[in-house]
């Protein structure tokens, strides 16, 4: 697949996953990267930060400096109301896409 298309596709999905994780609890960058990896989503850790910046610019998430239980201040992210709406939209789109694509791919084998 064309690299640009593939990365666009990945970015969109990654954005959705990040919104989903942040919707459950407010979380800081490193924790978020670990959560993604433990879910088996294999992206380089740093790649979340450009996405976090974009989501902040679109006002889907907000960061707040807070003391973390161990050590320094961290920027914890939480979802805004717009972010919640965007997550719902992502879920609908994903569900609408997932089944047909799965079926299509099954038929290929």
């Amino acid at each position, binding site marked *: 697949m064309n690299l640009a298309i593939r990365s666009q596709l990945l970015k969109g999905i990654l954005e959705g996953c990040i919104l989903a994780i942040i919707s459950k609890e407010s979380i800081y960058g490193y924790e978020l990267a670990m959560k993604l990896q433990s879910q088996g989503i294999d992206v*380089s*850790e*740093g790649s979340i*930060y*450009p996405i976090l*910046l974009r989501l902040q*610019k679109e006002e889907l998430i907000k960061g707040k400096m807070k003391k973390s239980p161990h050590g320094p*201040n961290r920027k914890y992210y939480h979802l805004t109301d717009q972010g919640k709406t965007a997550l719902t939209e992502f879920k609908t789109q994903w569900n609408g896409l997932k089944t047909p694509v799965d079926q299509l791919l099954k038929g290929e084998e």
Partner: protein
Amino acid sequence: MDASVLIEQNNQKRKLLNEENKKVYEEMLLYVRLFFNKSEQESEEILMELLDHLLDAQGEGKSAKEVFGDDPRQYANEIIGELPKMITPKRVKVGLMAIFYFLAVTTFLNGVVHSILYFGFGKGDQEKIYYIGTLALEAITSIIIVFVAMYAIFAYLKWSCFKDINKVLESVLFGFCFGALPFGLFLTMFIIMPDFGMSVQIPVYWLIGISIVFYVLATYFKKTS
């Protein structure tokens, strides 16, 4: 948290990085900061987040390459692409600040040098004639030369980030392009510039007073930006 506080914290925390990670991180830090048209606050916030992340990763034995990928320049470009631009009123004020600092320094040096020459060594005149038109044109030309030189330095630094470059060659090139060349241009300008416009005759030490006015203006723009 204020950008200046973040910068100070960053300086302290960075010491905790190991050699290899520090090298990669500091290149990235320099590179991101070179994009001075981006919001400083947001730039420093993300730089601090990346540092915290790298420190956590280092604690688990991971390297900067594993965190930022194999191409740190490309990664930094992605980050910079998402950073908001500095707002326009602030840009104008930062520009004016730079201009007035430059005028303050040059007027101050001029005043001091001429005063010392006259009062200390009896050389030159106590009063000098200045032509307003000439002065204005010289000031504008100087500012343009300085801005072009600064722009060139920034462009060069951006290009040289993440590259191993021969330091000796670099300083020779730097000295020529950003020292000798602008200096030569200044000199040529002062020699060929004709006298025109209204003339004023002022004692040379007045220049020191004028430079203080420029300095106060520059400080004002710095504080309000």
